[in-house]
């Protein structure tokens, strides 16, 4: 193949690549206050479960409704509604990534990613706790 045709191919490839990247609507990581500014826009919240407020979940009545409060590192809180079952380790999680959008003062969540100390063994603090239990 001639160099010229390779160059043409590369240019086409780059153009397609740029177009594709452009077509993907990336989301952002936000704090609760910045998410409240972006009403209705899909964001990722990095927060923690607010343990001072109640978690509402009763699978017997409605398995697809979970409500809890999340607090971020700046101390802001928001109610979170998740139309799905309660992730079993929610109470033990030390960090949650919430994907969804802010609707008014409520965060409507589509997906929850939990970071649980119990699941991962690389957390020495947790291991120290469990080794000393005995």
């Amino acid at each position, binding site marked *: *193949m*001639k160099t010229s045709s390779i160059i043409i*191919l590369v240019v086409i*490839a780059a153009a*397609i*690549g740029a177009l*594709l*990247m452009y*077509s*993907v*609507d*990336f*989301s*952002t*990581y*936000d704090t609760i206050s910045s998410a409240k500014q972006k009403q209705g826009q*899909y964001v*990722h919240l*990095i927060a923690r479960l607010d343990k001072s407020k109640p978690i*509402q979940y*009763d*699978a*017997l*009545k*409605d*398995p*697809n*409704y979970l*409500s809890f409060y999340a607090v971020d590192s700046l101390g802001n809180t928001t*109610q979170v*509604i998740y*139309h*799905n*079952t*309660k992730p*079993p*380790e929610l109470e*033990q999680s030390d960090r949650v*990534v919430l*994907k969804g959008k802010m*609707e*008014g003062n*409520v965060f*409507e969540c*589509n997906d929850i*990613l939990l*970071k649980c100390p*119990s*699941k*991962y*063994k*690389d*957390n*020495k603090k947790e*291991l*120290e706790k*469990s*080794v*000393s239990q*005995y």
Partner: protein
Amino acid sequence: MTFENEHLIPGQVGQFFIVLAFVASIISAISYFTASKIQLENEKQKWIRFARAAFFIEAFSLITVFLSIFYICSHHYFEYFYAYKHASKELEPKYLLACIWEGQEGSFLLWALWHCVLGTILIFTSKKREAPIMTIVNSAQSLLVLMILGIYFFNTRIGSSPFVLTRNELAGPIFSQPDYLSYIKDGVGLNVLLRNYWMVIHPPILFLGFASTIVPISFAYSSLSTKDWGGWVKAALPWTLFSACVLGTGIMMGGKWAYESLSFGGYWAWDPVENASLVPWLILVAGLHCMAVYNSTKNALRASYFFIILTYLFVLYSTFLTRTGILGDTSVHAFTEAGMAMNVLIGIYVIAITIPVFFMYFKNYKSIPTIQKEEDISSREFWMFIGSLILFLSAIFIISITSLPVYNKIFGTNIADPADREFAYNKVLVLVAVIIGLLTGASQFLKYRNTNKKYLLQKLAWPLGIAIAATILLVIFYPLEYTKKGPGFLIAIYLALFASVFSLIANAFYLKTVLRWNLKAGGAAISHLGFALLIGGMLISSGNKKVISDNSKTGLFIPFSKDPTGRNDENPMENLTLLKGVPTQMGQYTVTYMKDSASNEKDRTFYKLHFQKKDSTTGKVEEDFVLSPDAYRMKNNNLTSNPGTKHYLTHDIFTYISTISVPDSESDTATFRNHEMAIGDSVFYSKGYFVLNKIEKDPQNERFHFSPTDTALVADITVHANDGTQYKAYPALTIKHQQLDFINDTVVAQNLYLNFSGISDNKKFKINSKETDKLTDFITLKAYYFPYINLVWLGLVIMSCGFVISLVSRVKASKLVTYLSVGLVLAFLFYMFLLANA
């Protein structure tokens, strides 16, 4: 202080051999490098002999290291941190290997062990290229062993050794006592998510795939360092085929594992960890095609080098992504933060091998021969090259999105995954599937250099016609119902489906008309046929996947608090709650949660779900089966569930448990009150009264289906609550195979349990009632219908066999070896993917 009951010998032996392996690998690398630079044959052989000895010492050492870890974990020596973290006494012996490669150290060791196996084969087969090839293998090996070295160097620990002691790693009051070991009752054990036979088999295959990609790049290096430009391609082709086969199989094994035993609800989710292993495979396959082109036409040599070197770079980059914890916020199953020192080591590994080889490639770029004449547009090599380029571009597309966390780290940005991650990938790759399908179908009939147009049209007419007809038939009789992304995407899916069907038929035609079923020469066609089947199967199974536990249509649903977001009818509520013993309609099935049964594993429970599907008009039972999804309920009520799947040839019914009722610590104290009732009698309970209307013998209705051999009595009871509502209840007693059995009924809203226990002497009926505040047992589950999922697995099996056929015909294996190896691979993969869990 001396500690009691410690077993320090195996750890010291293991640690010694880690250091020995490290030193030996460096010596072997240097000696091989020296040998590769010496022209004098005599001198060269001396160095090679020395380097080989060092390599075998290294291999022996690593095997000893592995045996030491195995010994420590199998004996539950929790004084070792690795055993404490990964082993436990209740763990079944079959998971012993799995718990070894659960950790970073164990999986690095697994990788290094495969290098030893591959290195040994290379020593005996690579002849004059041995020295440069083994230079690369040993360099990689020394870097891998460095990861588990665990030696202090200027106060920094280099690598993390699997032989460190628990008392040195953890702080705690018990460690100041000489008898601390008597306080450590058990280890943490294997993560319950990973307790599955796939965890035993998937990592070795995947790591063999990763490890084997070093062979093609070593061949490329050998040619760059000796300036023997083209000769490596032919020798490296079988290895590249091997790599592509094993890595591809390993990736899909991960998918199969996710599908059948993890509750992700599918086999592929575009998780960064999955992508990180797919990308090197795509580039490797691109490289493989360029090498095949070079082998036949002397074109595409530069591209072959480029793709093969890039493959290894991406293998290491994916190691970096999954092991440094950088994916923490985007992936559900990456390792978490490994510590700065480890990250630096992995970073060094990423660049240490590939950068020098890339440098040599660019330095010699001008000298690598090319053909000046442009390829004919009707030639096979032109379209193969285009295909490689498409694969390469899709790899770049995938890795660009997957690398978001890396950009965020470097540039301090906060870009996150798109809202619908799967769709972001699917909408692009569905187009790739169209192109690849058409290329893999048509290019079989192209000839190298140029093709007679008439011949091509003649050959393609039938496959094209059949594919069009088949697609139209599909549209009419089995339409895809994936409409939630709009008509544009649906059309794209149909196009991809057409391309896959075309590729499938064209490759089958090629095998028939051109090769006349000479399968030995048909490795490529068979691989492409399998790939087309795989993609087609994915399109159908994902396109028509259905949630059958749709709670918006059926089931229990009592809003108990105001939902501030309102309900969105577009998203089906995917979870359904089943009360124990209460039949619930789910899709076409009536599902009853019958009972729990404990397993011999700690904390693990199986939940028996009875599925029944009846013909709506005749009431005849069409399907009747029991699924047993299971869950581990850990301390603090953590739940890890494994699906229960009913496999049919054409579809799967897939269920898993998402919530279970929390057992009350106080036991249910309410007891049954016994009543003897005649027909028409009524009995009061705290919130009303109930009436026995009649007793039916062997009724056949909506609710009960007794076989002719059974005897059944069903009490027809009406419950009148104080608030005026009425409920029907049908407690029953049955005699099946001379066994008396009670089917209790529950009026959930009234917390009233009714039981029919028999007939008293004075011809009255014994009805027992119980009231309790305790909620009944329940589970919440998700259920999916996956159609034609077996096409995916069958496609993968055929594709892998195609690779093996190409491989054995490239190395000119004897007939016996050919049949044996293809047969064994076919049997193994067919069993693993299609039979093992069925």
